[in-house]
């Protein structure tokens, strides 16, 4: 755990990782656990009485089917929101947190290139996201068996993978902004604001004919438009999210390796 910046990241973040993983698993289990009630139609009919536009925006169609239920709940808004918050907070730990605290000065005097340091820590962030979503996958799968919810393993895996990619975009967005300027408020603010705008663009743009196409610049579009829980993985969508992550990482690393490290 003390060998390199990649492994040390997990060691440094151990407590926060534990807490977040528990919270994410608990939330997912709780949602899937409510499925039998939803199937009873009572709540479903309540939601079905919402105007269609609202249901569409919130991703709440067809709540009685397992795929519809999961994409409206676990993979709808709350869990992605939590995962993205987790992702952005982790992203701020790549260099901005250390830079603001003043602990980066010493590390950057060590015989490791800035690019290597930055990319190793960013890779650790991505592994943390992969790990969290793998746990969500297992939690949803096991709970679905308990409540007798028919869901195909590969479809669930596809949804989880897209969730990793979605969260990775916002995590690495925060990392890239930190690469340009090592301030948590700036990096977190930019990543958070863009996440909100991206969500709104994907949810509400389709309902306004003139700007319908706008959703295609939203990461949320590539996350949900392919309907992974019923149709499986859309490799194109996964590819676009992955490309965005790589692009942001390269840009951030370029900036980070050339600029002044802040002193306190």
């Amino acid at each position, binding site marked *: 755990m003390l060998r390199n*910046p990649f492994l040390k990241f997990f060691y440094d973040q151990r407590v926060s990782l534990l807490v977040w993983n528990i919270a994410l698993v608990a939330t997912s289990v709780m949602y899937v656990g409510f499925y039998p009630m939803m199937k009873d139609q009572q709540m479903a009919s309540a939601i079905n009485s919402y105007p269609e536009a609202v249901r569409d925006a919130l991703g709440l169609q067809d709540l009685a089917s397992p795929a519809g239920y999961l994409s409206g709940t676990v993979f709808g808004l709350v869990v992605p929101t939590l995962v993205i918050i987790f992702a952005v907070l982790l992203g701020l730990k790549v260099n901005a947190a250390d830079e603001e605290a003043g602990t980066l000065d010493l590390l950057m005097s*060590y015989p490791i*290139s800035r690019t290597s340091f930055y990319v190793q820590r960013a890779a650790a962030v991505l592994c943390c996201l992969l790990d969290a979503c793998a746990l969500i996958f297992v939690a949803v799968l096991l709970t679905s068996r308990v409540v007798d919810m028919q869901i195909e393993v590969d479809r669930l895996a596809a949804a989880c993978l897209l969730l990793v990619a979605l969260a990775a975009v916002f995590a690495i967005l925060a990392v890239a902004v930190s690469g340009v300027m090592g301030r948590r408020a700036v990096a977190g603010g930019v990543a958070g604001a863009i996440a909100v705008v991206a969500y709104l663009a994907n949810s509400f743009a389709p309902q306004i004919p003139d700007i319908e196409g706008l959703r295609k610049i939203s990461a949320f579009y590539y996350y949900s438009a392919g309907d992974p829980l019923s149709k499986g993985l859309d490799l194109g969508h996964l590819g676009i999210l992955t490309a965005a992550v790589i692009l942001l990482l390269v840009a951030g690393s370029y900036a980070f390796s050339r600029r002044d490290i802040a002193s306190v």
Partner: protein
Amino acid sequence: MTSLAIETNGLEKKYGRRRGLVDLNLQVPQGTVFGFIGPNGAGKSTTIRILLNLIQPTGGTATVLGRKLGDEKVAVRRQIGYLPGTLILEGRQKVKDLLAYLGNLRGGVDRRVMDDLCDRLELDVNASINKLSKGNKQKVGIVQAFMHQPELLILDEPTSGLDPLLQHTFLELVEEAHRDGRTVFMSSHVLSEVQQTAQVIGVIREGRMVKVQNAKEMHLESLRRVDIEFAESVPREMFVKIPGLKNLNVAGNHVNCDLVGSPDQLVKVAARFPMVSLLCEEPDLEETFYSYYEMAEKNAS
């Protein structure tokens, strides 16, 4: 000709519109202990952070261990031990874990050297970094700077926060490094702190080198504030003649003044009268500098 561990030519750093460094020319021969002194805000940390590639100069060039700034950065840093001016250490980790990690970033260091340093500085390696006092954190900083026995030590205000006993241990470490032929570049805003160990002292003021001198000569010129109380009134005329006295004030049986250079004449004159007390202290560097320049200008005209 001895080779230079550090050389800068017209180094300049602007922080936006604020001055960091202006045309800084510095030469640190290999194997010397170089005391880099100047008042707060003079640009010591700025210089050091440029040499370590932590910040980019806005002008000029520099060479560290024979390589231009920016060339083979990782290889150069491998041979440098750095102690930051404001050392910040954080985290729920033990001292030994942090040192092990830092050692690994250097590709592993000799355990015996590390343990020996911790022993000599009386550093508790099982303590948690979060709970360390400022002085103890400074010890961790010193250990990590020396633990790989680097060719060049760059120490920014190394003795700040250390108690006198540990300052002594630290100075021993510097002397040992010197004996092994390593170069030590250490900054301070207190002249006396580097005077004992450094062979060469460079003075920086407002972003420029104003003087580089053999440390022993520097000692003669250093300024002292002197305050003498006599048992009886003393004649002013006797004191006015003494060379190197400034701001002389003789009031009855009380004499105070600033002394530049040797105390020899002052002591000999004062010894003719019965003395009650004698106080001699080092003023802060900012005052020392002003007196240097005032004296220099007077002598020139």
